[in-house]
């Protein structure tokens, strides 16, 4: 399994340099009170997203499934490694962005950046898992071209939906279900987090088994 994840790292190693430049750029562009709060998660999500797309396109262009499936591997391992590699890319993206944020915090205090916190890590991870859960079954079923279309849609949804949802909740703040949700978030935050985590695990498991079924029946 590890050689497969390592393969993805080698294929996308140039993205680390790109990610570094991209993060620095975002930290400058988002240096205002409106966006500053989201800079860490947006930058990390962007890097992970571009990396995932990059690997998919490289594999599609070179028809690499033929080589991968001729190696001493099972198809189950290929699918599992793809999911794990996305998590690995997320960790790399978070580390990169965290380091860039640290430098901005200490070297450019005038921009007023805080350090990365657990909410940034959580938001990025959840977004990437949601993106991967939707796009990977499509990637295994069709091609990188379709995956790119789906990824763009999911990317936009994840970018704009939170603001829309927050606006909707504020507008309907007197509704009983919104009040109970707010109460839960205020008093029993752990319960909400745990439920969210469980939903996330279920989503990724469903996605994995759909991908596996598709890949096991695929011809190369």
């Amino acid at each position, binding site marked *: 399994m*590890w*050689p497969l994840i*390592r*393969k993805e790292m*080698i*294929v996308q190693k140039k993205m680390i340099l790109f990610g570094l430049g991209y993060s620095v750029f975002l930290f400058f562009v988002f240096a205002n009170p409106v966006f500053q709060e989201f800079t860490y998660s947006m930058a990390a999500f962007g890097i992970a997203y571009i990396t995932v797309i990059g690997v998919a396109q*490289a594999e599609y*262009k*070179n*028809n*690499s499934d*033929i*080589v991968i*499936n*001729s*190696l*001493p*591997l*099972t198809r189950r391992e290929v699918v599992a490694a793809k999911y794990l590699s996305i998590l690995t890319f997320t960790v790399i993206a978070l580390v990169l962005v965290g380091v860039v944020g640290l430098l901005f915090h200490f070297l450019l205090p005038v921009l007023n950046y805080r350090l990365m916190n657990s909410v940034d890590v959580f938001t990025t991870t959840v977004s990437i898992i949601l993106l991967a859960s939707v796009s990977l079954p499509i990637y295994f079923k069709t091609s990188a071209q379709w995956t790119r279309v789906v990824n763009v849609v999911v990317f936009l949804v994840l970018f704009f939906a939170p603001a829309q949802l927050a606006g909707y909740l504020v507008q309907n703040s007197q509704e009983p279900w919104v009040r109970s949700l707010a109460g839960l978030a205020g008093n029993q935050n752990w319960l909400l987090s745990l439920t969210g985590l469980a939903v996330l695990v279920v989503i990724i498991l469903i996605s994995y088994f759909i991908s596996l079924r598709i890949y096991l*029946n695929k*011809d*190369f």
Partner: protein
Amino acid sequence: MDEILKVDGLCRSFGEFQLKDISISLPRGYIMGFIGPNGAGKTTTIKLIMNLINRDRGEVLIFGKDNIKNEKEIKQRIGFVYDENYYYDFLTLKEMKNIIAPFYRDWDEAVYQRYLKIFELPARKKIKDLSRGMKMKFSLALALSHGAELIIMDEPTSGLDPVFRSELLDILRSEIQDDNRGILFSSHITSDLERIADYICFINNGQIVFSQTCYELREKYLLVKGPLELLNETVRQFMLNVKENDFGFEGLSDQPEKIRRLLGNHALYEVPSLDQIVLYTVRRDKCVAFN
């Protein structure tokens, strides 16, 4: 006999094309040439052996084990060379080797470096900057560097110049000196197979026409030439296919004894080349007239 590869009753349908009841047997220590016209089913058969496509029916045993149930273990011991480059072309040879090598427990870096040297492959060059021949050499270097017992090659010589083709055949011949190995080699170029193959497997229209040793083939088929007066209905019955022109006929028979007895000294007899066997067999249902 210890079979390194045994395919039995393999079937797969793709719309109109069907691979029907494919059976092949390759003993250890031998090279099998896999021939057939374009679209005959060579690549499909190889992909089924490699479990790159799913089969409808049949069985593939490699090293005596089912190729799906023991996929991981079996592929540790297989070296593959395909007709095209499926490696990431924007990587250098070194980077690609660094991806492939960790998958094999018996990877031998010294052997790989030796092949790199023999083939004069520049490790720091990107794959996309290599010529077709160089890409094939790189594929071959990877396939031969992990102690593979079965080497599967799909059209490795197509589009290559005669010098490299000859080089490749010499390498394969030296590899097969180890009696523990076996090579399945598909090619259009029958002269290459005549040089190195011990067995010839001929596929046409998704069906195996024959799978025999070269010796058996030479015994089985006979090229017959003679004047048109000899070509009566009885003679035609013993011929697989006949070409006729104003001066006479030339045909392939798979019943050499009977045809010799029938025509005696009135006809000329030759051992057919693999090319002639393929040509006459593919056009079996047609009598081709030429001038």
